[in-house]
Structure formats: C-alpha cells, structure tokens
C-alpha cells in the first residue's frame, strides 16, 4: 500500500496533471457530451410506441436498407482495391509513386460538398464518365449506384492507410523462411502475409463502413434524394429537420448513432485485441 502510494507520487514529477485533465474533461463535456445527451433527452419526449413507429416508417426503413447496403458494398470494394493500392505503394517502384501516395488522402482533404458536385457532374448523362455509361444503359446519377460511387470515393483512404503501415513493418524474414521451406509465392501470400494483415484490413473496413453510414455532403448531389429510392438516412433526418419535426429527426438519428457507437466500439476492441495479440506473440 505504502509503496504503491510512493510510486504514483513519483510518476507525477511533471506538473499540470490536474489542470490539463480538468480542462480536457470540461471541454469534452461542454462541446461533445452535453450536446450529445440532448439527443437522448429529445428522444425521451416520445413514448416507446411513437419512437418505434417513427424509426420503422417505410421511408426510414428504405433509407436504412440503402445506407447500410451501399456502405457495406463500398467498404467491400475499397477493401479489395485499397489493399491492392497499399500493396503496390509499399512493394513496388513506379513513376509518380510519391505523388500517388500523397493523393490517396484526397477524399479526407477534399470537402464533401466539392466531392459531391464533382461526382454528380462526372456521372451525369453528359458528364465525362456518364456519357460512356449511358449508351450501355448504366445510369449512375440519381440512382442507388450513385450512392455507392460516392461512398466508395470517401472510404478509399481508410483501407490504404490502415494496411500500409502494417505492410511496411512486415518482417521479410518470415516470407523468406516460408519460401525456403518450399512455399510458392501464392502460398506465402495466403498463409503468411494475408493472415498478418487481416486485423488491419478489418479495422480499415470498419472505419470505411462507419464513415460511409453517416456521410452526407458527397452523396446528396449524385443521389437525387428520391424518397424510398435514393434517400440515405442522413437525408431523411435532414428532411424531418426542414419540417421542424425535431422529435422525429432525433428518433431516426438515435438509430444511426447507436450503430456508429457499436462500430466505434468494435474498432477499439479489434485494436486492443491486435495489440495484445502482437505483444504476446513477441514475448
């Protein structure tokens, strides 16, 4: 007991613990936690039946299907192509590699409204890409496919940036060992490299999926926001807000919030598990 006390005392040679922790908690509470709690306050003004009725309205249900479906597909496509991009950037040399590497973060840096109008104009009937797809009978603007395209754009960096550092740190000796034991390249990839990258890939997938669920700016221009067809959940919330029906808007927001929190939690658990796993395997 006494040694424990001395130890904690000694850890705090540095000043400012109470001050910085105090400010951190104060600012966190003021900006994030108190406003966020208003969501649950507003929801509690509805009875359970009213709440259930609101969150299961046909327009809301259709929006969940579209939002979750398109986000999942977009994250899946990004997991596949993002993995290839990360692989190419880490393992190969080619002209313009550094420029490409820097530009991968464009969807993080480009404001969503700019991305939105750009994608909408590219995939419009007369747009740069749309004019080639239109004769083939593929319509992107004002369809669910458009939602998917926008969500793919904004989710792109997540996979690349989570897989890339892990791939860089992989010990080449493991591959060499596998190869020297007679494994061919394909076996080395699937049995040695891929399993080590799976946690990063899963984390990146979840982050891209979570980001896509809440996305608004880049989707609304290309989607056309037709109720029951191309309306994503944030647009449904926005629609209720425009009609000043805050209770309804909040009820649907709660559904989206709960899913986001679960995803955030699973990312944290995943990372915690990976860290633990790595540290035990090193020991």
């Amino acid at each position, binding site marked *: 007991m006494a040694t424990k006390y001395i130890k904690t005392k000694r850890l705090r040679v540095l000043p400012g613990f109470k001050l910085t922790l105090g400010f951190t908690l104060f600012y966190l509470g003021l900006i994030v936690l108190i406003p966020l709690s208003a969501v649950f306050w507003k929801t509690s003004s509805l009875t359970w039946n009213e709440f259930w009725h609101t969150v299961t309205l046909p327009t809301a249900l259709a929006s969940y299907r579209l939002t979750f479906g398109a986000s999942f597909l977009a994250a899946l496509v990004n997991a596949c192509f993002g993995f290839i991009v990360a692989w190419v950037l880490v393992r190969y040399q080619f002209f313009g590699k550094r420029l490409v590497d820097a530009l991968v973060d464009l969807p993080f840096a480009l*404001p969503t409204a700019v991305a939105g109008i750009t994608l909408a104009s590219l995939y419009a009937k007369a747009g740069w890409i749309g004019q080639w797809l239109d004769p083939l009978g593929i319509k992107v603007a004002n369809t669910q496919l458009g939602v998917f395209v926008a969500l793919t754009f904004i989710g792109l960096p997540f996979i690349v940036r989570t897989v890339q550092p892990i791939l860089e740190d992989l010990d080449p000796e493991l591959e060499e060992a596998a190869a020297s034991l007679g494994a061919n390249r394909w076996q080395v990839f699937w049995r040695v490299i891929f399993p080590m990258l799976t946690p990063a890939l899963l984390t990146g997938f979840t982050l891209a999926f979570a980001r896509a669920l809440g996305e608004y700016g880049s989707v609304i221009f290309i989607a056309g926001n037709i109720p029951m067809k191309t309306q994503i959940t944030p647009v449904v919330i926005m629609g209720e807000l425009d009609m000043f029906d805050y209770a309804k808007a909040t009820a649907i927001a709660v559904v989206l919030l709960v899913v986001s929190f679960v995803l955030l939690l699973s990312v944290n658990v995943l990372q915690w598990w990976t860290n633990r796993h790595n540290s035990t395997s090193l020991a």
Partner: protein
Amino acid sequence: MTPVAPSLHLPSRPGHRRANSESPGVRRLLIGVALAFLSLFLFLPLISVFAQALAKGFHFYFQTIRDPMALSAIKLTFIAAAIAVPLNCFFGVCAAWTIAKFEFRGKNILLTLIDLPFSISPVISGLIYVLVFGAQGWMGLYRNADHPAWPWLANWLNEHDVRIIFAVPGIVLATIFVTFPFVARELIPLMQAQGRNEEEAARSLGASGWQTFWRITLPNIKWGLLYGVILCNARAMGEFGAVSVVSGKIRGETNTIPLHIEALYDDYNFTGAFAVASLLALLALVTLGLKTWVEHKQAALSETDIFP
C-alpha cells in the same frame, strides 16, 4: 504514370525472386489495377473540378469569386476556422499532455470519448446543437419558461435576442465539434511514443513546468502539432453537413463556402459552383502538400532522435 520496368529494382538472384516477390507480369497487372482504380475515383474528379471551374473562362471565374455573396461566405468560413482551430489545438495539447504523460484510471474511455465526433454523422453533429440552442431545444424552452432558474440569465438572453442557431455562433460551434479530435488524435500517439524521460530529466535539472513544456515538449511535437492543425483546418473550412443543419442558409449572412457552393449548384449555376469549389479543392491540394512535407520532416526528426 506508365510503370517503369519493375525488374530493375529486384534482387537479381534467380530463384530468390520466385518466392519472395511476384513475377513482372503480376506486378504490372497490380500496378495497372491500382492506378486505374485511383484514376477513376481520385484523379479524374480532381481534374474535372478545375476544368469545369474554368469552363466559361477566367473572367467569369473571377467574377464569381469576387461576388459579394461569395466574399461573405469566404469571410465566414475564415472566422469559423479561426475560432475552431486554435481552441481545438489548445484542447489537443492539454488532452495529449494528460493522457501521454500520466497514468490514471479510465484513460481508454477518455480516448474513445475524444474520438466520438469522428464517428457521428455530420447531420447529427448539427442536430445536437439545434436540440441544445434551437427554439424547441433547451435554450428555447429556458427562455420561454414561466419561472426559469436564474431569471436574470433568461432576461439577458431575451433582451439581447441571443441567437445561436441559424446564426454565426451555431456555425462556429458545429465547426468546433466536427474538428474536435484532430489535433488530439495526432499528438496522443506521438507523445506516448516519446515517453516522459526527457521532461523528467529537464525537471530534475531544475527547469520549471513551463520551461519544460516550451523547451522540451513543444520542439519534440511541433511537426505532429502542425500536422494536426493542417488537417483540423482543412475540415473546418470544408465542413458541409453539420454547418448546413445549423446555418439556416441565409445568403450573404450565414453561408459558408461549402453552403455557397450548394446554393450556386441549386441555382443551376454549375460553372459558378465549380469556380468556388476550386478554391476548396486548391485548399485540399495545399493541405496534402503540407501534410507530405510535414510527414517528411517528422520522419527526419525521429531518425535523429536518441531515445533510450
């Protein structure tokens, strides 16, 4: 972007290559697939922003940007960023100091809570401030209550007609919320990796707390801090969803640059919308350039470091 012969960079021992790297054909295929995907989803959109912005020539471009409505949007965007970025920067340093330099219970919970705004939809980020400050929200109910607690506060709010939602303060608050974690997220892992040995050494040699921070900690984290500030600023100036909920979109008054772009687009003034959008696209490119430069600097700094 044509790939150069990749075999130049390979170890030349035959046999080694087969199991330790892919055949040249597979390499070229993978590079081709990656570049094709990125061209479709990144490069083409980027080029098209500038091409469409200048579709009606430079005269129209500058006319759109110098329009009073556009200038007012630019001004408001700068105001919001000028308030949000320093506040979140200060918070980020405080949070990183307390989390990286001290041990306490509930640290992981605190870390998760700091990350919260990243996982919340922009529309909901705006909504929560409407619920707090809107007419049907806490502040509205308080102002119209028959017997409010602290009647002087209710009177003061009513007398001065304090408006937060559909006004500038709401935009600033929403911007602070969505950019909340950026600086903290950059600094926490960096300061955790650096540990507290250097600071403790400085303290034991008689430096005061402030001296330790200014002379030891700050030089160590300056590139990470700059990195966080750059990302925070980019998001602050580009935020659309959250600001769109709280702004009310009064042209010339509560429109930020992204909202002005939407207004022009909804007016079918596409070239105008892209002209203003090109400003933000330029900002994005500058952000990426600075980010790459800072990453380079930070890597150089950590290479020369002599951590025990």
